């Protein structure tokens, strides 16, 4: 059974009496263990697609099944539950909580999963070490470099052991050397069996993946393996 299955999915936004069709009948399947890039210019609908795949939103039409959950008409709460269990996000701007230290940032998904405090801490620390932040546990994001921040974000995405990790322009705010290191981490994760979905506008980054889906005007323009 595929991990992600979209059948004729559309997303329509309404602004005043204007109708904006951000996604137009998308059919897409992603199997477990894939390393997929979604690429397209801004306004192509790739962000909307990622929001749907990331369970942040529901489609206006069509069928969407993610990790075995039919989320075509899901409520906000069931979306949140799937996000919490099955999905990790890595954002371009890190999106860490400035008031929390590394461990507290990483353990955030566990808080909402209802994991007891002690266990939460152990798992968060282990994850922090796994992404190479073992000596930074008590630091706040402001005391970390961009690369380290992105590692914290990756740690947070991984701590709940999700089946899919999304990267939304994860290297966008980093210099090329650091970006390279972050991409390396994604590749290692994929080698270890995680499904990775990168959203980017940069064909060079997309070329690192094993499957590229190019979006234009809300439709899949083409699909290829680099």
């Amino acid at each position, binding site marked *: 059974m595929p991990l992600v299955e979209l059948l004729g999915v559309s997303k329509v936004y309404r602004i005043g009496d204007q109708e904006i069709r951000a996604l137009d009948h998308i059919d897409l399947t992603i199997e477990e263990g894939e390393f997929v890039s979604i690429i397209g210019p801004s306004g192509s609908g790739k962000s909307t697609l990622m*929001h749907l795949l*990331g369970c*942040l*939103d529901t489609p206006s039409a069509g069928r969407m099944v993610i990790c075995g959950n039919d989320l075509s008409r899901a409520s*906000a*709460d069931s979306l*949140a*539950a799937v*996000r*919490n*269990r099955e999905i990790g*996000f890595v*954002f371009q701007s890190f*999106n*860490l*909580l400035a*008031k929390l230290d590394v461990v507290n940032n990483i353990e*955030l*998904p566990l*808080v*909402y*999963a*209802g994991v007891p*405090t002690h266990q939460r801490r152990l798992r968060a620390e282990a994850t922090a070490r796994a992404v190479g932040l073992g000596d930074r546990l008590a630091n706040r994001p402001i005391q970390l470099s961009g690369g380290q921040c992105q590692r914290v974000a990756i740690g*947070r995405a991984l701590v*709940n052991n999700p089946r899919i990790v999304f990267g939304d322009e994860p290297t966008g705010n980093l210099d090329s050397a650091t970006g390279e290191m972050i991409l390396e981490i994604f590749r290692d994760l994929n080698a270890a069996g995680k499904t990775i979905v990168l959203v980017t506008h940069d064909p060079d980054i997309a070329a690192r993946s094993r499957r590229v889906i190019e979006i234009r005007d809300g439709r899949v323009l083409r699909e290829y393996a680099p």
Partner: protein
Amino acid sequence: MNFLMALEIGLREIAAHKFRSGLSMLGIVLGVGSLIATLALTDGIEKGTRAFMEQIGGLESVRVLNKDISNQNFEFWNLSPGRTLLDVEALRAQAPLISHISPELYLPAVVGSEEGKSERRQVRGVFPDSFVVNKHTLTAGRFLTDLDIERATRTAVVGFTIADELWPDVKPSEILGKVVLINDSPFEIVGVLPRYERDIDARARADKRPPRYAGRQGRWDPFREKNESVNIPFSTMFFEFRSGAFPMNSLETVRLDNFTIRIGDLTRFREAMEQARAALDVTHKGVDDYDLETREEWFDRMESSVRATRLSGGIIAAISLFVGSIGIMNIMLASITERVREIGIRMAVGARGRDIFVQILIESMSISFLGGLIGIAASFGLLEVLSAVAPMDNPPVTTLGAIIFSVFFAVLAGFFSGIYPALRASRLNPISALRYE
């Protein structure tokens, strides 16, 4: 998300914005402070009044008063002898629920010592029951006894003021046996009553401060009458100052100046009153020239005035709490606007709407709870200021119950003021929240 986690987040948020949180707490601080202070003041008044009522005889005491006859009985007024010793006998025989009966004769007299000091005072001829009805205690000697009545002894029990006036700086035990002259007739002092005073005056005296109202003329001292009393046996009073013979066969010739009875069992108050009325109606030949004055009305009046004070203070406190909760709501709305992105991040990693709701609600309740705690301290300060500016008859009594009650209301105010901001935060769309700058 569990409660402790939400609490921790909330407290961290408050600590991060100390000044702002402090400002938003202000209304709650004042509200709780004034609520506790109001309750303390009214509890003090209630306690003081109760203690005073208790000392002047409590609810159990009922006075038999003369009353103007109603028009329909007017022509029969001379049938009734009025309040006489006959009433006492009738009550003794027919009203078993009346435990003590205290008829008194009054004599305005010159009370003096052999050393030559004298004052004009009211002398009372009493029965031993009088000491029970008026709740007297002793510092030295004994009360008057039935034997004193029987033999019409020339003995007296004097109040503190009398003893102090006639023999200043003499210990009560040494006053016993001294002779007091009542209109030049010598009486032996067998008992001295203690100094009756309010707690607040007793404390002031213990601290060697002047009494609170020293120098304020005309202020009512509730214990003045008790302190100034000179009590001699009823029979002696009658023989010496009223008539030549004690008319045991015609008791109704002995008219009383004061007449108080005491109900033994308050739970059967109504029944006792009916017994008393039945007996007195017979002795008064059915003429309604007497009335039974109970303290119940006093108590009711006192309680309703305490209630009114409590209510007005409560309303002020409630307004303050209301204003405080609006302040908190305002701050919480500002705070969630500032934290839209944070809320978006929390939602992205799996926080449900209700997790966010609970977090914001706990935050606003924490603010109000902290405000309540500060308010407790504020209430003590407020009471200090109040008692310095306007001295009170009754010292305020701060009870734990009042504190818990007030803080509970503060937290309740925080709860209600948190609902709307929490609802708004929990309904944020995670996508737009994440994009929010």
